[in-house]
């Protein structure tokens, strides 16, 4: 399959030109600027941009609260990706195995994806208000417990994980259902007769066939957990509650936003962006290496 089908030296560049131009002007050029900013003590308010070399980076890496944020972010990403994919894959398998109504389940599972993260988080905040929220009203009546969702570090962390997983379930389910529907018919039939997932059948045959999708979704969910779940944190916990040398949900993107944008320390924020980028690049590389061997992924 790897033979070039159409010949042309300039033509492929022409096809790529629009995308490359947009990327160059609106992504890579600003990214280079950001890299430059990261070596300055630039402050949006004062308009100063004093060159400080590595200082922003050494400050960050020496700051125990930054290291804690990085560790928490890693844990958060791992949980969001693994739980998110596990839940979504189970639901997708379930929804494609029923004889009737699959279409409706699919719709219902996908719809919450339309809610913007900010609105979703506001709703969660209402639901989990420990004194007057729905959840504790029900838990209090039924079980007599009223968990302090927002100021118990473990619970607050768990709540943000739950919210983040929930928000992306629709997206993941849609992708998995698509992948399942595109599986060879005989495999699907065999799986259906065999009945149970969790069986050897699933792990030996189904799961490997779904691995390209899983590979893609791991990446998509990772960037989601890192960057897009920002709104959830901002509205649900504001990075709190206090734990160790920082907040229990003070993830890297939230930090970057508060330092770089809310507190106007542009250079410091840029340095954090660079570190985050390096982290993601490392994980991605590792993933490609790991997956390169195991995923039938195409060249």
């Amino acid at each position, binding site marked *: 399959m790897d033979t070039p089908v159409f010949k042309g030296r300039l033509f492929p560049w022409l096809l790529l030109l629009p995308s490359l131009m947009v990327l160059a002007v609106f992504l890579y050029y600003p990214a280079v600027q950001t890299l430059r900013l990261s070596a300055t003590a630039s402050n949006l*308010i004062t308009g100063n941009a004093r060159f400080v070399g590595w200082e922003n980076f050494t400050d960050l890496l020496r700051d125990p609260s930054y290291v804690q944020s990085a560790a928490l972010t890693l844990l958060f990403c791992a949980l969001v990706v693994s739980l998110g994919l596990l839940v979504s894959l189970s639901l997708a398998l379930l929804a494609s195995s029923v004889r009737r109504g699959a279409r409706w389940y699919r719709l219902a599972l996908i719809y919450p994806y339309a809610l913007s993260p900010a609105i979703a988080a506001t709703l969660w905040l209402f639901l989990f208000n420990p004194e007057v929220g729905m959840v504790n009203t029900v838990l209090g009546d039924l079980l007599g417990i009223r968990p302090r969702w927002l100021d118990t570090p473990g619970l607050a962390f768990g709540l943000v994980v739950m919210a983040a997983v929930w928000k992306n379930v629709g997206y993941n389910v849609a992708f998995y259902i698509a992948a399942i529907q595109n599986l060879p018919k005989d495999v699907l039939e065999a799986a259906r007769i065999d009945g149970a997932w969790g069986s050897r059948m699933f792990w030996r045959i189904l799961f490997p066939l779904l691995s390209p999708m899983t590979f893609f979704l791991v990446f998509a969910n990772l960037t989601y957990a890192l960057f897009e779940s920002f709104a959830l944190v901002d509205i649900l916990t504001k990075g709190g509650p206090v734990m160790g040398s920082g907040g229990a949900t003070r993830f890297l993107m939230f930090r970057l936003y508060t330092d770089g944008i809310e507190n106007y320390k542009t250079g410091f924020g840029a340095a954090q962006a660079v570190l985050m980028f390096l982290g993601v690049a490392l994980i991605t590389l590792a993933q490609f290496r790991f997956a390169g061997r195991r995923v039938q992924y195409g060249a």
Partner: protein
Amino acid sequence: MNRPTLNRPTLNRLTLALALSCYASSALAEPLTVEFWHIFGDAKRKGFIDQKAAEFNAKNPDIKVVPVVKGNYSENLQAAILASRQGQPPALVQVFDVGTQLAADSGVFQPVGNVEKTDYGDYLKPVLDYYTLQGKINSLPFNSSSPVLYANRDLIKKAGLNDGALPATYGALLRSCAKIKAALPDAKCITFGASSWFVEQWMAEQGTTLVNNGNGRAARATESNLDSPAAKNIFSFIKKLNDGGFYSFTGKLDDGAGSAAIFTAQKSVFLISSTADLGNQLDAAKQGSYRLGVGLLPIQDGSARNGVVIGGASLWIAKGIPDNVADAARTFALFMTNTANMKEWHKLTGYYPVRKSSVSELRKEGWLDSAAPQTVAFRQLLNTKASPATAGALFGGLLPARQIIQEGLQKVLQGQDVDSVTRDTKAQVDKVISDYNKSLGK
């Protein structure tokens, strides 16, 4: 002709051309456009601003004020600074109290008192003091508020307490709380967001500045007073409330909305919140059919009542715009905060009318003598003693400092001891201050 879609660069060039042409006749001229960036996206307050802009535009056909809603306070300031650096500043910007030093240091604004000779004597002194830097009035006060004690009078009565006078000191409040706890198993005594704003207010009430050098007004602040006895009083009070099981909050820092929800669900007898919340609280009381009381902010026992720090926001005029646009912006700002409009604003929202003449007219109308709950907040402000403490803290790192102070509150609520928390909090805030000062070194 004046389609609102007219794009900004064109307008800019037009106004510039206008400013430069020495024979500009008003008959030929496009109206001067004054962009006003503010943060009020809700119907009530946005409606007020839009209506005042329309009135003003009708009265001044050569000026066109265009109000634009710009996210929250922090985003609004950021957008204004970015725009100014690109040579397209909005003429008039609403800047929040904590951003005062930042806005001044940014160099993209000009003091409002610069060009036109206006008598600012009519503005309430404690309010104007906040926005006066090194003797110069930098910005015009607009929406100003301070915290008060809201009370559910029905619950107070149910608890068997006197619902006439509300507790005005920490001690009185704690005593009421003990009785409420015994009498009302379903409700907590008090709720308020774990917010730095209240700590700042309670410092001022005790006559202590938040930071040194006259609250950063005599010279740049270099350290905070967060380990002062006054600060310890505040943190100890919070600790006592919490240890006694009197305090209720959502757990999220600075969650005023969450606390308001607890109060309006009648799960708490008292609420400390801004005067600007009054409109909502009155509505909620009507819906929940309970009687709402409003009292002074309770303070440390034995301390004189020094008064509150003004909170809210003011109106700033950009630098780098033609003088006639700056004049137009100032004229509009003065119009929007004139006697009649401030009265209307006050009645609509609960924010203070920032002018003496508005106050005296309200008094003549009997508004202040009426039982209107607005009056409490008012007296609290009018009785404020002018001092560096009540003028409010001024330093560039106030925003991150607030976060640190709030985390300090949470540590106390988690059971840490007051002395170590105040010591840590001070150290962290002092570092923020020195970092900011360092970043100014040009």
